[in-house]
């Protein structure tokens, strides 16, 4: 599977801004399939963890009300240019993915 996470981290002063886009359907479980009228089962990301040098900088806990193909941005301090940042997600079906980005 092609990687579902596109992430960028930019250092400005001593604050790093991280921006990420994840491809994921984020089904709420309340939508109906227009052709069959059946409910589309819930399928959404529950947890996104972002690590810098082995330390967790942000844990995002999400409900199904996050938009399809989620966008996430946050800031943290303490990183240097060239540092590696790791992001991983887990959804309610147990599927997961992770990606790394270099602080620029």
């Amino acid at each position, binding site marked *: 599977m092609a990687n579902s996470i596109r992430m960028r981290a930019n250092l400005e002063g001593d604050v790093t801004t991280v921006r990420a886009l994840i491809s994921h359907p984020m089904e709420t479980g309340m939508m109906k399939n227009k052709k069959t009228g059946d409910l589309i089962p819930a399928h959404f990301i529950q947890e996104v963890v972002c690590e810098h040098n082995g330390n967790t900088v942000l844990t995002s806990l*999400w409900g199904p009300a996050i938009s399809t193909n989620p966008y996430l*941005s946050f800031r943290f301090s*303490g990183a240097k240019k060239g540092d590696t940042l790791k992001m991983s997600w887990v959804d309610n079906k147990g599927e997961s993915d992770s990606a790394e980005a270099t602080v620029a």
Partner: protein
Amino acid sequence: MNSLKRRTFLKGTAAISSVGFALGAGLLTPRMVLAAWPKSAFESKSVDDALTNLAGSADLSTNEQIQIRAPDIAENGNVVPITVETNIANIESISILTEKNASPLTASFVLGAGAEGFVATRMKMGKTSDVIAVVKADGKLHSSRKEVKVTIGGCGG
């Protein structure tokens, strides 16, 4: 074909009963597993319940130091951009709740070492509602709210 259908049916019932079981367990021993995804909070139907299940309290104090950036009018409720920014010290978490969504709790961001009081994402809104940002710092809950008018809801079928 017939057996396939039966399989999906069985899967469906198994999933429903496990949800029921988890809910029951959640009620008996609230906040049993802190690190796990707070299922009961995300399934709560009111802001107060969601906060009680998430943070153990729904006691909010309005704080001017929390800024919510979201559109005044969102044309498409499926994609409402929101940014929460704050300069309160010792932040533990930032949560976003949409008062009139079926399940108000939208997201909760647990900030680790070095994280600044800033998060941005995009969310779904069923209809016009107040969006509430709750910041937990030093064990206290601070909040701010902003109304977002939705012209086309994002939770319809």
